[in-house]
């Protein structure tokens, strides 16, 4: 079953044709990795899935993005969409407030005021993000005091707190050291049981380690998409072969 379905998507930044006729199906409760060289459009595609591209001026999008049966560009309920399709960014971006307030932020934005319920969700979310043990006795301290890896797990906790169905991750470990990266990857292995994950990554090893499906992008085109094993071991396209074998890119 597919959670997200992109059909004939074209995206322009002004005159620049950034995504060319993309069609891709994202299966439910699996990890789909988007790979390709810088500027190939993989992050742009990720950002169309929760309509973060709406923030960019002069962007034109045509085609269809379906979240289950819902054509997400057909109406303007972006808040609803972004609650159900969460996002974790390249650079950990905790808000300048306490750890607790960071996790509770999205819920409070929806008007949740019940302290008991908030406490419970904050605790569960931090547990799910494998951060609870490290921060449980300092929930009231500033989130900016955490290490880079902890900050990124906090951002994941913040996203989980909204109980989304999909989590989009835009190179979530590119600013982290190998140990912190390993922790996040372990965490993703847990998260895939509950969430559909789409991850943009520059690390082919990471894509190999964590993903079920891999999509390779090249100059705004989706070149190849399939099971990760197959894309890496028997690529069908010459460009994919060149990229995954490290010849270029």
């Amino acid at each position, binding site marked *: 079953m597919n959670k997200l379905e992109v059909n004939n998507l074209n995206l322009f930044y002004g005159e620049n044709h950034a995504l060319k006729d993309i069609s891709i199906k994202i299966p439910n409760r699996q990890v789909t990795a988007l790979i390709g060289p810088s500027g190939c459009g993989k992050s742009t595609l990720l950002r169309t899935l929760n309509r973060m591209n709406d923030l960019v001026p002069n962007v034109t999008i045509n085609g269809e993005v379906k979240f289950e049966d819902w054509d997400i560009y057909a109406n303007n309920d972006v808040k609803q969409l972004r*609650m159900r399709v969460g996002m974790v960014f390249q650079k950990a971006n905790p808000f300048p407030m306490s750890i607790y307030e960071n996790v509770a*932020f999205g819920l409070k934005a929806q008007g949740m005021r019940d302290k008991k319920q908030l406490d419970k969700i904050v605790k569960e979310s931090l547990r799910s993000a494998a951060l609870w043990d490290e921060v449980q006795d300092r929930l009231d301290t500033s989130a900016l005091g955490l290490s880079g890896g902890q900050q990124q797990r906090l951002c994941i906790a913040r996203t989980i707190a909204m109980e989304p169905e999909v989590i989009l991750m835009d190179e979530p470990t590119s600013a982290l050291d190998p140990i912190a990266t390993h922790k996040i990857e372990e965490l993703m292995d847990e998260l895939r049981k509950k969430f559909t994950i789409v991850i943009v990554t520059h690390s082919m090893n990471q894509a190999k380690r964590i993903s079920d499906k891999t999509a390779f992008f090249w100059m705004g085109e989706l070149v190849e998409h399939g099971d990760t094993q197959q894309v890496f071991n028997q690529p069908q396209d010459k460009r994919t072969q060149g990229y995954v074998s490290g010849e270029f890119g």
Partner: protein
Amino acid sequence: MNTCTKNSDSGIFLRPTPKPDRLGTFFHLLFICCAMVGVVSLATIAWFLFSEGLPAFRQAGVIELVFGSEWLPPALFGIFPMIVASLISTFGAVLIGVPIAILTAVFLAELAPKWLADIVRPAVELLAGIPSVVYGFFGLVVIVPAIEVLFNIPAGNTLLAGVIVLAIMILPTVITISETSIRALPPVYKEGALALGASHIYSIFKVLIPAARSGILTGVALGIARAIGETMAIIMVMGNAPAMPGSILEPARTLTANIAMEMSYATGIHASALYSTGIVLLIFIVLLNAGLLYINKKSVH
């Protein structure tokens, strides 16, 4: 200072010079001199204020001068009414001006369509360049008569008129600095908040403004400095009676107005009392700056 030079024996091979680096030293000294101009000026101002103002403190007494409520030179030098007038006019200006300024800054940085921002922003910047005597005119022609009509009082030259003029005068400073600091925020704050399904307005009030707090406070500090130091416009609209104002609908005289109005004819102990008015003003400005610095430091942690 690790400069390199061309070595004639080995072509363009670069290596550190053994010679003392004269140019570097020169610039180093130049930078220090420039940095000292401000500090030395401040020290000089403090020194002459204190040396000129201390006789009045000695003769009239610190308590009598600071907390005395009668200003009848050359007999009585109580400046407490002026301290109160300065504080109320500044505080009132901040109370009215800062919220307007922050909302304007948010509007310019986040909400305004480009064409509208391109009209509002230059207008605000122009406001900063208008001389205070012109603000005084504006106050006399618009605000003072408006207060007379609204509150049905014979003379509109009141503390309230001063508050309103000052509130307008601090707008450009606070707006410009707040807008700059909101724009300087990394886009990830806004994106992070929106990606959690928060509305734009909620993100602005809960994330962007708190994150830009330190810059906004700097703007407020400069606005306060401008308000408490403003003289000309205040003299023109506030009535300048050196008595304790009973309400904001009565005339009042600020510390700065006191100095400016009487300096031209004051002599002896009277002149010294005006300098001591300046000392009190200086102390207030130092306290305000220290206070804001403290809040700023605290908000970072």
